[in-house]
């Protein structure tokens, strides 16, 4: 398939098309390599008994190194195979492959399969709507616990609409496994949120409770109806109720501090603004997602007085705050708030302000985000995002900054050496770092830098004593009431 690529690399459209195919193949090879590495890692981890602090760490390190080497070998194998098949994958890349394990030891348990990079390799039973949603979630296009939950349910509704029960099975039995494929795919794109998990559990329960004698069309209609009502009750209406009651907590002259971009906090603030309350909002944001920027934009558009700063300015922003509103990813059963990383810092600053005056911390959270899991620290349960997100991407070259002719010549030379390979994307990171040492971020090739690790965790756990109130659609509660409400809402 890739043989023609060698023959006519100059023909642009053909090259374009084929490079896509090549990319796909490369992704496959990479995945194989990754699998090999993970297997090796797992073996190594299994081999070292009882990872206790001192010796255990050393053992794990050695194991990791060994795993890395294995992965390198696997990768090279993949490369070789590709070369045999006539692909023009660059040789030097294989050599540059990191030998070192870049996983942060403490979070070793969280490095599972890395996030899926493309739809390639997804099972054929995965619905196109789910395929698209998976990629959107991976790229944070669909981001936020409730948004992901709603989007998943809507996608599943389409899956159910397009579903026909195969012969010999019943809908209530087969549809669950069919959905499981979708769910597995989604979770390879990004680990599922608590709310997604809760919604899926409810949906599966509903499917299982369908009488096999019910005709298929009727059952599907019932399920669609169930999904609609779930979204309506648990999220849409719940959000309105929460926004309404949380907005009551805002008074004229308040200074509200919020962190990152919670949709529920946004609705609350907009609701309060609609009621004609005069207050100021201070949005604290964080790298690398900058979710607060969108929140700030919306609030500014609504005519609110908004102040914006980043994590480094927390203690300044909190100084004149009168209330802190936080969104939640989940509330754990021990009353702790599991939310975007950095939330704990804001809550802590609110409670430990120098003046001794505590600022009330109010969490807005639907009950669908309640979970029976418990968490004591932010390390056992967390989600790791791609560490490359932390590497600053340089703004595209300015108009005046034409590429250095010498560098361009070098690049051209390199290209010809490689046999005129049309797509250089795989190399761009390294070559950019080599050619423009001053422009590229010093972290550009951190993966090749020994002993340097980047850690990009998504969530942290805020201790329950920092949360004064959780506003839910069932009322405003102390954090200790979370397990009770969770039990009530799941038993219903």
């Amino acid at each position: 398939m890739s043989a023609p690529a060698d023959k006519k690399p100059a023909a642009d459209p053909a090259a374009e098309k084929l490079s896509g195919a090549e990319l796909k193949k490369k992704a496959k090879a990479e995945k194989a390599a990754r699998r090999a590495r993970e297997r090796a890692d797992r073996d190594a981890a299994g081999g070292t008994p009882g990872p206790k602090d001192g010796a255990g760490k050393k053992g794990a390190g050695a194991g990791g190194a060994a795993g890395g080497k294995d992965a390198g070998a696997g990768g090279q194998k993949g490369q070789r195979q590709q070369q045999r098949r006539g692909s023009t994958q660059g040789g030097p890349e294989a050599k540059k492959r990191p030998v070192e394990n870049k996983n942060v030891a403490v979070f070793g348990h969280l490095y599972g399969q890395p996030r899926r990079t493309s739809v390639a390799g997804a099972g054929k039973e995965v619905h196109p709507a789910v395929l698209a949603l998976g990629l959107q979630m991976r790229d944070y296009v669909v981001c936020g616990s409730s948004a992901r939950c709603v989007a998943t349910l809507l996608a599943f509704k389409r899956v159910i609409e397009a579903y026909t029960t195969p012969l010999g099975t019943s809908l209530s039995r087969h549809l669950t496994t069919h959905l499981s494929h979708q769910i597995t795919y989604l979770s390879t794109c990004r680990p599922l949120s608590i709310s997604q998990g809760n919604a899926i559990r409810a949906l599966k329960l509903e499917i299982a409770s369908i009488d096999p004698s019910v005709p298929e069309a009727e059952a599907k209609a019932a399920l669609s109806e169930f999904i609609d009502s779930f979204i309506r009750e648990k999220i849409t209406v719940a959000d309105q109720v929460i926004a309404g009651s949380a907005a009551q907590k805002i008074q004229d002259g308040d200074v509200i501090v919020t962190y990152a971009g919670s949709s529920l906090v946004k609705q609350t603030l907009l609701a309060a603004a609609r009621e004609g309350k005069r207050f100021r909002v201070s949005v604290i944001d964080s790298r690398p997602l900058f979710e607060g920027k969108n929140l700030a934009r919306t609030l500014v558009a609504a005519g609110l007085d908004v102040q914006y700063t980043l994590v480094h300015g927390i203690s300044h922003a909190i100084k004149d705050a009168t209330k802190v509103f936080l969104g939640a990813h989940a509330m754990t059963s021990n009353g702790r708030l599991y939310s975007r990383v950095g939330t704990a810092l804001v809550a802590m600053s609110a409670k430990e302000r120098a003046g001794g005056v505590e600022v009330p911390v109010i969490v807005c959270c639907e009950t669908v985000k309640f979970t029976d899991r418990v968490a004591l620290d932010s390390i056992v349960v967390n989600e790791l995002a791609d560490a490359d997100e932390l590497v600053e991407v340089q703004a595209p070259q300015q108009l005046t900054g034409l590429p250095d002719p010498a560098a361009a010549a070098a690049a051209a030379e390199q290209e010809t050496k490689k046999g005129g390979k049309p797509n250089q994307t795989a190399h761009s990171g390294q070559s950019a770092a080599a050619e423009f040492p001053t422009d590229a971020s010093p972290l550009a090739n951190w993966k090749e830098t020994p002993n340097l690790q980047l850690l990009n965790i998504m969530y942290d756990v805020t201790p329950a004593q920092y949360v004064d109130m959780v506003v839910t659609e069932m009322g405003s509660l102390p954090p200790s009431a979370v397990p009770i409400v969770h039990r009530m809402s799941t038993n219903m």
Partner: protein
Amino acid sequence: MPSTAALTPGLSSFLKSLKTNPIDTSIDNLISLLKRRQIRHSRSCATATAYLLLRVISACRTSDAGKLIERVQSVGRRLIAAQPREMVVGNIVRRVLGLIRDEAEDDREGDFTLSEAGSESQPQTPRATDDPSVHEGSDRSLSRPPFPTINTTPISMFNLLSHPEPQPSLPGTPVSASPSGRFPSYTPTKDIRAEVLDGIGEIIDELGQVDDQIAAYALDHIHSNEIILTHTSSTTVQRFLLKAAAKRKFTVIHAESYPNNHEATHATVSGKETGDDEIMSTESFQKPLIALGITVILIPDSAVFALMSRVNKVILGTHSVLANGGLVAAAGTRVIARAAKLHQTPVVVASGVYKLSPVYPFDFESLIEYGDASKVIPYEDGDLVDQLDVQNPLYDYVPAELVDLYITNLGGHAPSYLYRIVSDHYRKEDISF
């Protein structure tokens, strides 16, 4: 690097021009550099101030202490007015004033006890005990830990040996341009100016060696297999960790201090050069920690709380230290210290004595400087820039109760002890000059 240094005004270009420019031009030059924040690291400010005062005093054609004090005060006031939040400038001015006063007093005493007049540096030892020790430590070996303050009654052999060679300690400094009063010890009324110039030379030496002296304590504070959290690209902290890394293996978690210092931090952790020529001094050409086999984990500032439960020790650099034991450090330090306190993790602050300011803060807000808003919201988001109130604080005030230990070039101190060091270094009459 020299080319960039010449292009953008900074510490190096200032020091270069100092020799050739007339005094008043140099003063104006430094004032504008401070105003434009082209010199902003505290050590650079201190060095620039010290060299400028050296030049000012050497150009002052008088040996009357009163006139010298007046001159230094007027220059100092102008410098402080240029950058009131840079306390290091005031510290250096105060130390120089203290030097002049000491010399003047010694001079008066010296009239009565002429037998002692032969010794140049001895009379000032009761107050500036650390300075001679610092000086001597440097002449012999850089790695030698300086003598603790207490047992420095430097009538020792070192003092005798260091006497014949006061010049090598200030190589290439403008002081050599005024050798007129170099060995005035035989005249009955010795030249105060030369003594003061020597003293300033010692301050400059101290500024050059302070990191090494602080680093000498590293092994007392870092044990093997520790997990250490740090923040910003402070060279003092890096030096401290490097010193420990030579002997022990530990892990460093480095918060990147976005958006004001992240580039330098990234460069520090990865060992790449920065484009920032201000900190491009000889000290910054050091190996990164990763080259010594230390695992460095770079995290965004937001992840500090999540990781704090795993951290054994927090080691922070600072911008300046206040007399009450609080500190003014890079923004974000306060939440880190707070989170550390909450997790019962010790917070260690590494800082040279020159950053220790006699200012007692009543209005913390006045100490905080705000920086470039475009670092928080880039101008690409033009619509937001118009409508938002964007805040980019450069510094945080960290109260003393959040700090467990200070490590200065004199050793480790509790925050509550700092006022004592302040009174060792500055004279009462200079605190508000």
